[in-house]
């Protein structure tokens, strides 16, 4: 029923159907006064319905293709246009070359990446490293942006952010020293406090606050346009306790995921969701799996962090464009870095 597509209240919809308006065309052809009389609403409400109907029906009209790249259905984009866009989409480095390589350059903007792993593997470390790395100035190959860190578990330790920020600045100074010896003004003018200042921190204590915050982020990012990454640590924590209605939980999580995806596309930023693991009984044995795994169909990429012998590895579990591969990384006092083992080859699966 086309009328069901209109974003109006249920009672108004009911009245339209009762009065015989079943298609958008029928509504669009009526005049506001006739509409108001037929369905017994005020003139202003009737003209509002009319404008919604005309907008919706023009989006449905099919235009004859005339050689230009106009969309056949409103709101779409051709694959060619997307390809050109993708070429220029930016990445945020993880400071580990192997990890960047399997990610195709780093964490991509406009995409939602889920990262999960056992406690102590380094999820928060990667989150903090990305919050610092997004701020690397454009002269050094970074995005020069700001970060939003949404902390649901209280695992954000400021001392660690300071350590990683200082190490990042030292690395930048080293880089500029090596490659820009000619320029005098190659001193990195960034102070660790500047980096800390550009990380917006929200502490969320319940799922209500989490949903409220995600709703509010649209307005927040409008006012802080240089935010380029949102890190949620960890995204399912509050949804795993005191939820009796599982169906409601799934609906709320899906809506939250879609909103985040919309934010990513609208503001061209990267969304990183850190997730915990749980055990699941599958095929006669207990296996590890990411928590609430059924909900995350809207994540573009999923990365699983695991122990391989004595090394930490990252595995691309799900991605529409990246090859399934794993790469080693290590967590040092300076942050996430390349693994120090001699066999640093990336394993293709």
């Amino acid at each position, binding site marked *: 029923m086309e009328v069901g597509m209109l974003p109006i209240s*249920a009672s108004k919809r009911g009245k339209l159907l009762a009065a015989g308006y079943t298609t958008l065309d029928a509504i669009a052809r009526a005049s506001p006064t006739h509409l108001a009389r037929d369905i017994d609403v005020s003139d202003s409400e009737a003209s509002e319905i009319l404008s919604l109907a005309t907008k919706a029906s023009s989006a449905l009209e099919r235009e004859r293709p005339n050689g230009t790249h106009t969309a056949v259905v409103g709101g779409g984009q051709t694959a060619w246009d997307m390809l050109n866009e993708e070429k220029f989409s930016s990445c945020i480095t993880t400071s580990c070359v192997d990890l960047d390589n399997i990610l195709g350059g780093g964490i991509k903007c406009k995409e939602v990446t889920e990262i999960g792993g056992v406690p102590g593997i380094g999820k928060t470390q990667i989150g903090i490293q990305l919050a610092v790395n997004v701020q690397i100035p454009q002269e050094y190959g970074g995005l020069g942006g700001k970060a939003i860190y949404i902390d649901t*578990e209280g695992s954000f*330790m400021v*001392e660690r952010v300071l350590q990683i920020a200082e190490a990042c600045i030292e690395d930048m100074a080293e880089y500029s020293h090596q490659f820009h010896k000619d320029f005098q003004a190659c001193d990195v003018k960034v102070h660790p406090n500047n980096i800390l200042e550009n990380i917006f921190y929200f502490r969320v*204590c319940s799922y*209500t606050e989490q949903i409220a915050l*995600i709703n509010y982020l649209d307005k927040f990012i409008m006012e802080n346009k240089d935010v380029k990454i949102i890190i949620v640590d960890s995204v399912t924590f509050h949804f795993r306790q005191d939820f009796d209605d599982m169906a409601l939980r799934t609906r709320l999580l899906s809506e939250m995921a879609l909103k985040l995806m919309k934010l990513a596309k609208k503001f061209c930023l990267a969304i990183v969701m850190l997730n*915990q693991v*749980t055990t699941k009984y599958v095929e006669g044995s207990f296996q590890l799996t990411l928590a609430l795994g059924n909900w995350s169909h809207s994540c573009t990429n999923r990365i699983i962090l695991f122990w*391989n012998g004595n090394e930490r590895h990252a595995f691309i579990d799900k991605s529409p464009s990246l090859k399934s591969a794993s790469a080693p990384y290590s967590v040092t006092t300076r942050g996430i870095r390349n693994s120090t083992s001699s066999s640093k080859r990336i394993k293709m699966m």
Partner: protein
Amino acid sequence: MANKLINQMGLPKSIANIFTARNVITAKDALSHTEFELMELLDVGKEEVTSAMAHVSEVVCPPCQTALLLLEQRVRNECMAGHLPTRLKGLDEALCGGIPFGVLTELVGPAGIGKTQFCLKLSLLASMPANCGGLDGRVIYIDVESKFRSKRLIEIGINSFPEIFLKKGMAQEMAGRILILRPTSLSEFAESLHQIKVSLLQQQVKLLIIDSMAALVLGERDCGASRQQALGWHVSFIKSLAEFSRIPVVLTNQVRSQIGDESRMYSFQAAQSRSIIKDNPATYDSHLVAALGINWAHAVTIRLVLEARSGQRFIKLAKSPISPALAFPFKITSSGMVLLDDDGVEMKGPEISTINCQGLSLSSLAVSSAEYFLTKNT
């Protein structure tokens, strides 16, 4: 925050009345519906719902801070920028100053290894005056298994800080600041937590110790999912207590033997288990893991594993966002825990989290003081 009333949020009267009429009273009620559901429930259009929910969300949303602001507040207001020094040099350095405020620190290890001894020392340190390096505050010690011995506490105090404790009346004052609670069930514990929350700010409580969390949870009659849920609720509550009052919270945990020999793997690992998983050299005496499960392991911020290997005890930084993976050898003396090496041994890989119990016997707990009796009831 979540229980804020919708009609006190400054929404336009008309929409606020509709919310109340449909029994959507608090912000939590409103946010527990998707936008589409609200449209149907309240019988209003999409735009109205979206703008009303945007307003509600902005009110309920937690305040924005920057990392810099957090750091400055801590440096300004708190001891050692938010750390309780343990006086164990190597450990304090690795932990950027000591046990951090506002997060949960877990001590896990086999029975008799020294967890309670460590807790006793921490209680003393928190109660000592600031000019002696303490927090000058009260301590709440939740002693589930009745292991607290005041005599031992005073002995540790006299041996570690003789210049303070031998002064007249000091021992009484310090011991007077430590309040011991002995809840017998999880619900009793929850009640005391509520009372603690009320008195936290008034009473200048600077440290909360729960010894042991495992005994409290595992002593309950319910099993399985409801126990996990109860644990989840308690953990969230304790965490919020720690954060809002910015105090260190130390909890002890027990160990249990690992069921089966397989380590947990992901589905993609199981498919290639031959090529990827290397067998760790099996340690067949006492293969132990921490109790309380993987959700608990995620919930604590710092996990200190105490273990014994070939008769030597180690304290390991198994999970810590701010420290390298170090293990320090220690022993228990009349003045509590003492590190034998402040540099520590760097450990690679998941070995930092394994718990061993080799060569640990009760007789090895002999200390120089003849007055010290350790009664273990396990």
